[in-house]
């Protein structure tokens, strides 16, 4: 397992190109391969030190897979690798926030009316917005022309993901 590179770069760890666009089936096969190499079962007869190292590597590989698989955290990882710091605190883009508030009000109304058609419409609306964010992230990262604008998209995606989660839990309650 010495062939595992010492790196904070999860793309390099999984031998994938350092870019936002990702081939998820390639990611899965790279993950399974590495997981096999570092699996703790292979080290039951090894020294305590080696077992500990294998455990650490296995954790690292799991983290890498989890981070790269998710469209939001992959963007955050790329920003981190490029030393771009996003303002972590309060967002004050009134127009975007007003739209978010309206969507949450809509969700509240659906919770009362139990209208599944309306919920379906809300899901596809949020999905469209999520996709638009991801498309813009893809454009920003591939242009390599300053990554700071990606921060806004990451922030918006966080709000949209949260909204989507809430819509999912409402769907669970209603069905």
């Amino acid at each position, binding site marked *: 397992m010495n062939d595992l590179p010492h790196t904070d770069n999860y793309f390099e760890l999984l031998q994938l190109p350092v870019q936002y666009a990702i081939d998820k089936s390639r990611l899965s096969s790279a993950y399974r391969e590495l997981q096999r190499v570092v699996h703790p079962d292979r080290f039951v007869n090894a020294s305590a030190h080696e077992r500990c190292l294998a455990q650490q590597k296995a954790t690292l590989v799991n983290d890498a897979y989890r981070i790269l698989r998710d469209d939001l955290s992959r963007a955050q990882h790329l920003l981190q690798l490029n030393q771009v710091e996003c303002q972590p605190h309060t*967002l004050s883009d009134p127009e*975007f926030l007003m739209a978010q508030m309206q969507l949450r009000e809509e969700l509240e109304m659906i919770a009362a009316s139990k209208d599944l058609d309306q919920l379906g419409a809300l899901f596809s609306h949020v999905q469209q917005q999520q996709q638009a964010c991801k498309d813009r992230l893809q454009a920003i990262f591939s242009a390599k022309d300053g990554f700071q604008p990606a921060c806004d998209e990451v922030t918006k995606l966080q709000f949209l993901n949260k909204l989507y989660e809430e819509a999912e839990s409402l769907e669970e309650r209603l069905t």
Partner: protein
Amino acid sequence: MAYTEKVLDHYENPRNVGSFDKEEKNVGTGMVGAPACGDVMKLQIKVNEQGVIEDACFKTYGCGSAIASSSLVTEWVKGKTLDEALSIKNSEIVDELELPPVKVHCSVLAEDAIKAAVEDLKKKQ
């Protein structure tokens, strides 16, 4: 996580939930959001001719602590001048509601919401 009684009180009986017409000249609207948890907060203040806040309301989508923080500050800002309202610190909200460290960001959000509302109002006048 267990909420303190004060948080639960505001969460279960939130004060001043609602909306004012944001187009009115004596209404200031603060919209803020916390990216990490996706909380959205709208806080509005209404001032009289002397520049004193005579009414306030809020609408918050978020966790119990975010709702309690915004509910609390709508009570606090009533009767205050704009400058007094601006001097409210998130640490005072933390102390009053006994928020744990992981919920401090909710009080920051409420402080930022007041600032945004006052700024919005000043822009109009």
